[in-house]
């Protein structure tokens, strides 16, 4: 670690100006904070956190729709854990559960399918959030439900994809990005090739890094080397998991079940072609169609600046609610709820540093 830190300091001197690298993925954000890695970097190398926390970028209107579903007596809502505490316009799934709604936390979408099989008289809805890493698991489960005719299972889908979101950040002139630490496990599925348009069209270096602190430091060293040599290429540090073409079986599964769609990102707005909608062929498993879910315009908390945090336009301490009204125990926005949210990470690991 110290050797890598020394190498980073030397390369940063060769670069000779301040640079700002974005770690796109929330798991990277958490790993960087937990390991204290930021403190090993020279003052001229800054890490900023990106929009790669699926719970954080889920729009309030999706939470509201899930809450509305949970209030229907015949529905059981199943979800990954973090989502249940995210406040919607007026309530959260956790509060609905306390009031008697059937809301279950599952580890895998296949657990939700099993629950549907065990409870044939209930409508079991899985909340499909997550990026390319998660979409294959959900696609497989939808296909399996179709193969085995589990008619009481469906997915309320809000899956998102990374490339067009990263492009939107580059077009947003407010945030200066000198390099991306690309999301490691998204890249396992998509392959390194997905980022080539960023290096070719925007001339921004990309390095796909693993999640150990040593991986991330090496990734930062590789980005600095590219800056020092005025190169912009896609490089892979996380070679034990990521290759050029990715997991082709997983990609095919996504393409069979989902189609590209525009998607609303909290704080960023609608990004064309950055989401995955369930194909017509599987409409019977699309909760939005099957159960007639209406997405209404939502009112996020007026003071909450999650959106600006997700675009890296501000750091959490610049939000007036941070650490005062908004804490992990009483969160106003999803960036404080998710264990991978930038606000939660700042709160847990660097309040003293940041204040």
């Amino acid at each position, binding site marked *: *670690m110290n050797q890598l830190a020394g190498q980073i300091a030397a390369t940063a001197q060769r670069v000779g100006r301040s640079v700002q690298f974005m770690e796109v*993925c*929330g*798991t990277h954000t958490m790993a960087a904070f937990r*390991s204290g890695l930021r403190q090993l970097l020279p003052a001229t190398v800054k890490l900023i956190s990106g929009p*790669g*926390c*699926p*719970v954080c970028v889920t729009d309030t209107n999706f939470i509201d729709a899930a809450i509305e579903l949970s209030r229907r007596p015949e529905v059981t809502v199943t979800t*990954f854990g*973090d989502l249940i505490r995210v406040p919607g316009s007026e309530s959260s799934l956790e509060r609905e559960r306390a009031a008697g709604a059937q809301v279950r936390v599952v*580890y*895998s*979408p*296949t*657990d939700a399918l099993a629950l549907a099989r065990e409870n044939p008289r209930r409508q079991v809805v899985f909340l499909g*959030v*997550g*990026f390319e*890493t*998660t979409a*294959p*698991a959900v696609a*497989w489960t939808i296909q399996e439900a179709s193969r085995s005719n589990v008619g009481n299972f469906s997915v309320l889908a809000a899956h998102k994809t990374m490339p067009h979101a990263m492009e939107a950040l580059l077009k947003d002139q407010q945030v200066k990005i000198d390099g991306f630490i690309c*999301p*490691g*496990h*998204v890249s*396992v*599925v998509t392959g390194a090739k997905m980022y080539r348009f960023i290096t070719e069209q925007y001339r921004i270096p990309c390095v796909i890094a*693993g999640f*150990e*602190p*040593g*991986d991330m430091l090496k990734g930062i060293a590789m980005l600095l080397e590219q800056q020092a040599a005025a190169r912009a290429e896609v490089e892979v540090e996380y*070679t*034990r*998991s990521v290759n050029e073409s990715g*997991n082709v*079986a*997983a990609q095919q*599964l996504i393409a069979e079940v989902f189609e590209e769609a525009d998607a609303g990102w909290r704080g960023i707005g609608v990004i064309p072609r950055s989401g995955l909608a369930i194909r017509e062929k599987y409409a019977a498993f699309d909760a939005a169609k099957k159960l007639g879910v209406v997405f209404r315009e939502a009112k996020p908390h007026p003071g909450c600046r999650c959106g600006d945090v997700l675009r890296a336009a501000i750091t959490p301490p610049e939000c007036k609610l941070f650490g005062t009204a908004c804490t992990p125990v009483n969160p106003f926005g999803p960036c404080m709820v*998710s264990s*991978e949210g930038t606000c939660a990470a700042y709160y847990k690991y660097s309040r003293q540093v940041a204040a």
Partner: protein
Amino acid sequence: MCLAVPAKIVELRGETATISVDGALRDVNVSLVDEPRLGDYVLVHAGFAIAKWDESEYAEWRAIQEAASP
């Protein structure tokens, strides 16, 4: 949420494998990786193996982990 953990396959039944993560056992789906075999290390996310590590890749991971621990 894109957390994924490396785990060893200790039992294999068609598309389903029992994996061990530090001794804890769980069934996961292995239909997305090529030719899963007993003893293979796989990277698991949301109940699915999304990549396979060979011995040298697993050894690399252990080495990085050990280098970081005090």
